[in-house]
C-alpha cells in the first residue's frame, strides 16, 4: 500500500540518504534502524509529506498518513480528552476516543491537563492520538521515547491491532519492540555518498 522507490532526501541542504527503496503492505510494519544522525527522521518526515524528496517517488500516501514525531502536538491547557477530541474532529473521525484512552490506559488521566502529565504520560497521549485519526499508515519517529516497559507493551499491542485491522506502519526506533509482522530496515547502507549527485539545493554550487 505504501511504496518508496529510489528516494533521496536531504536535510538542511545536505543529502542524507539516497536510493532508498522499500514497500510496506497492509498488515506490515517497517522498523527503520540506524545510528544517530543516519537520517531516519529525515526519511520519515519526507514520507509523511512534511518535506519534499529531492528525487525518487513515494506512492500510496495521499490522505493515508498519521505522523507522530519528536513532539506530540498536545496543548498543555487542554485536558487529555479534549486533546483527543480535537484531533478526532480535525481528522473527521467519529468515536474511538474511549478506545484510544483505554488502549494507552489514559482513562484515569482523562480529565488531567496535558501540561500536568509526566514525560511518559505525555508520550502515551501523543500515541493515542494516532488511533483517533482513522488513518491507515502510521509514521512514527522514536515512539517509545521515555516510555516504561509496560507502556512499550501497550504501544506494541496498539500497533499490532492496527496492523491486524489492515493498517501499516513505518517507525524509527533504537530499541526492540517485539512486534510481529515487523520487518527491520537498516538505513545505513543508503547514506548518501559524496559522489552521488542527488540534486539537492547545494548541488548547484559543487
Amino acid at each position, binding site marked *: 500500500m505504501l511504496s518508496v522507490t529510489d528516494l533521496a532526501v536531504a536535510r538542511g541542504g545536505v543529502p542524507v540518504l539516497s536510493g532508498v527503496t522499500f514497500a510496506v503492505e497492509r498488515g506490515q510494519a517497517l522498523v527503520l534502524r540506524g545510528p544517530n544522525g543516519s537520517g531516519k527522521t529525515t526519511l520519515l518526515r519526507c514520507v509523511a509529506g512534511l518535506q519534499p524528496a529531492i528525487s525518487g517517488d513515494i506512492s500510496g500516501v495521499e490522505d493515508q498518513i498519521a505522523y507522530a514525531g519528536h513532539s506530540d502536538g498536545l496543548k498543555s491547557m487542554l485536558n487529555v480528552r479534549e486533546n483527543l477530541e480535537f484531533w478526532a474532529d480535525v481528522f473527521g473521525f467519529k468515536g474511538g476516543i474511549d478506545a484510544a484512552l483505554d488502549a494507552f490506559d489514559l482513562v*484515569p*488521566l482523562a480529565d488531567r491537563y496535558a501540561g500536568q502529565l509526566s514525560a511518559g504520560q505525555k508520550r502515551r497521549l501523543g500515541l493515542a492520538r494516532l488511533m483517533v485519526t482513522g488513518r491507515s499508515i502510521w509514521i512514527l519517529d522514536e515512539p517509545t521515547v521515555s516510555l516504561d516497559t509496560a507502556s512499550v507493551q501497550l504501544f506494541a499491542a496498539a500497533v499490532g491491532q492496527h496492523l491486524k485491522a489492515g493498517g501499516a506502519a513505518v517507525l524509527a526506533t533504537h530499541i526492540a519492540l517485539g512486534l510481529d509482522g515487523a520487518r527491520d530496515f537498516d538505513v545505513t547502507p543508503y547514506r548518501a555518498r559524496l559522489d552521488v549527485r542527488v540534486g539537492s539545493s547545494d548541488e548547484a554550487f559543487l
Partner: protein
Amino acid sequence: MSIWEYANPVKFLRVSERVTPWFAWGAGLCLIVGLVWGFFFTPDDFRQGSTVKIIYIHVPSAFLAINAWIMMLVASLIWLVRRHHVSALAAKAAAPVGLVMTLIALFTGAIWGQPMWGTWWVWDPRLTSFLILFLFYIGYMALWAAIEDPDTAADLTSVLCMVGSVFALLSRYAVLFWNQGLHQGASLSLDEEKNVADVFYQPLLFSIAGFVLLFLALVLYRTGTEIRLRRTRALIAREVQHA
C-alpha cells in the same frame, strides 16, 4: 490562641461563614442611611449644585480603591513571610473588588468632571495616579490568571504586588512633578475651615462606613470561595495522583 489560628483554611471558613452576613447587613444598612440621607435630605452646594451628591459615592470608592491595594500588599507580605494560604487567597480575592472600586471612582469622577471642569477627563495628577493604580490592578489579576500552579502564582503575585507598590508611589510623585491639577485637596482633613461642610460630612461618613463594610463582606466571601476552589483542586489532584 493567636490570630494565626484563623490562617487555617477550615477554621477560617467556619468563622467567615458566621461573620460575613453581619458585615453584609451592616453594609446594606449604612449604605442605605448614608446614600438616602445624602441623596434626598442634603441641600445643594452653592457652587457645585446638586452634583455635590456624587461625593457620597465618589469619595468612599476612591478611598477604598486605594486601601484595597494596601490591604493586598499586607496580605502578600504575610504570605511571603508566614506562608499562610488564606492570606494569599485573601489578596487574590480582594483584587477584583479593588478594581471595581477604582472603576467607580474613575467613572463617578469623570461624570462629575463634565459639569465641574467642563471635560470628562483631564490629566490631573490625582486622576492620573488613579489610572495607574487601575493598571496595577489589571496587571496583578492578569498574573494570577496566567499561572496554573497556585503556590507559584501566590508567590509571584506577591512579589509583583510589593515591587508594584514601590513603583506606584514613584509614579505618584512623578505625576505630581509632571502636571499640576484641578482636583480638590484632601478635604476630610481635620482642620475645620477647609473641610466640607457638616451637612455633607455626616452622611458621607455613613456611606464610607457602608462601602468599607461591603468591601469586607465581599472579600471574606470571595476568600471563602477561593479556599473552596483550592480544596477542590487539591482533592481532584490527589484523586488522580492515586488513581
